[in-house]
């Protein structure tokens, strides 16, 4: 039975990993990354290292996930007034 569980876990992990890399939508990648952290933590439990799993859940999914959500929000608020990104250089430096 755990064989089926492990195959599902590995399949899901690979799917999420590809989803978080192979995508031009930034926000989707971030959500995929957070979920990747959660499932990597489950995988660490299955591999028998609960300490690594705890660190992965807290740092990988939690702290990094929140930072990345913050970054996406900042990118968006930057991007709105300057649609092309070329004219903005002078005003950013000055």
């Amino acid at each position, binding site marked *: 039975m755990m064989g089926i*569980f492990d195959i599902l876990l590995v399949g899901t992990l690979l799917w999420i990993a590809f989803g978080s890399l192979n995508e031009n939508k930034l926000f989707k990648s971030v959500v995929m990354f957070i979920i990747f952290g959660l499932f990597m933590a489950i995988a660490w439990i299955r591999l028998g290292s609960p300490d690594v*799993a*705890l660190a992965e859940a807290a740092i990988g999914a939690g702290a990094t996930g929140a930072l990345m959500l913050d970054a996406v929000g900042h990118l968006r608020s930057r991007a709105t007034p300057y649609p092309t990104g070329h004219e903005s250089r002078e005003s950013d430096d000055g």
Partner: protein
Amino acid sequence: MTLALEILATVIMLTVALGIYRIERGPTGTDRMLSAMLFGTSGVALTLVLGELTGLHGLRDMALVFALLGALTAVAFVKRAWGADD
């Protein structure tokens, strides 16, 4: 009892795989975030079940961390990244 726990873990894993469809489809960032919140709850259940299955009782502390992280991510999303996917 071991078999029942294993079946429950597999079923929860299956529901999670089902939920990833919602991230793929979207359509808005909020819908994607909902799946992340779903996996917070499923992650707690999965951790508790695996903890009982492997006899690693320290995993209950990890379930607590999962429970708190779900709320943290939701707050970060609502405060900071709202509408980033439109």
